[in-house]
């Protein structure tokens, strides 16, 4: 093993001497064309790196958008649940009346929303006929394209004592 290493070292020293000696340097076209070979390599590496960076930026942007949508959706769901709960809180009565739904204090119920959240609430009777019951919205924040909606169906009693179906729809942005 020691002898083999010595031989290799000896060959290396001889090679260095032969290259450093100007008499041993030839002028021909056999040299490695590094510049033209490295260009495709450089292009491939740059393209690969650019692909990874672009994919990472796009994905992180998308995940951030989805998280924002998810937060808004949860806010809308909670707000809709709160409205339904407030509408149905009447002791001894199975269903709220349409008049009670009209009298809901939406501004008070919306007080629990996160700060700087715009909202719009609509209560529409969807069965047996289509009728507007209530429409209410915040005016503090202009409507944004990033909005999420949630809806619930509740039963209510109309003026003819029929049980109708009312849709509670909430949009938050």
């Amino acid at each position, binding site marked *: 093993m020691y002898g083999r290493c010595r031989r290799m070292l000896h060959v290396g020293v001889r090679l260095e001497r032969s290259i450093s000696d100007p008499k041993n340097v030839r002028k021909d076209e056999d040299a490695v064309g590094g510049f033209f070979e490295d260009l495709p390599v450089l292009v491939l590496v740059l393209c690969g790196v650019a692909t990874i960076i672009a994919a990472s930026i796009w994905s992180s942007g998308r995940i951030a958008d989805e998280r924002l949508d998810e937060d808004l959706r949860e806010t809308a769901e909670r707000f809709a649940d709160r409205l339904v709960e407030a509408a149905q809180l009447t002791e001894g009565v199975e269903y709220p009346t349409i008049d009670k739904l009209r009298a809901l204090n939406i501004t008070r119920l919306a007080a629990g929303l996160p700060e700087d959240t715009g909202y719009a609430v609509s209560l529409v009777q969807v069965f047996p006929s289509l009728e507007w019951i209530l429409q209410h919205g915040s005016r503090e924040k202009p409507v944004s394209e990033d909005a999420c909606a949630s809806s619930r169906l509740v039963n209510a009693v109309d003026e003819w004592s*029929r*049980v109708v179906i009312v849709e509670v729809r909430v949009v938050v942005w």
Partner: protein
Amino acid sequence: MFGERARKDSGQLALLDATVFFAAAILLSSIVISFSFGPSGETGAGGTRIDANEILVALLHASVAERFEIVLDEPLMVTGSETFALCLSLEASMVMAGGSTEPFQAMNDVIRDALLMLSPAGFLPCLAVTEKDRGLQDPLFAIPEMLPRGAEVYSGSAWIPSSTGEELLVVLMLVPALSAELASV
């Protein structure tokens, strides 16, 4: 001799390494992009939340709100204040007793219209009523009709008592219209 060997091997190795790196970069980018596409949850087209159970419960508790006559041995007058649950229970009891759904056609039309009003846009509704020991493959009756098998279905169910005291299973199925068409082909 030494220079010629270096030209052939080194150049090829660098290009091969770069190609492998590029392929790995494409693969890694694909994984990163596919990772950002998470599951969309129980939503239909356009992110609409589909809750068949909520629709079914609201429908069963609602009044029929139509006056019509059910022609049986003794004509039965529906005033409109009866709930859908009561009407379905009555129809199921008649079918279980060996009768047909023919006398209940007017009521079934009202239920079908109500289902169409309550279903999300782009969805076909189907309401099936069956006995406790009977499967959904062979329900007592279905309004408007049983949907083709194999279609993607959002469903909700509820139990209602029949007029004879037995429990009846009411199932509401909501099928995307396109999925139903594909399944029927």
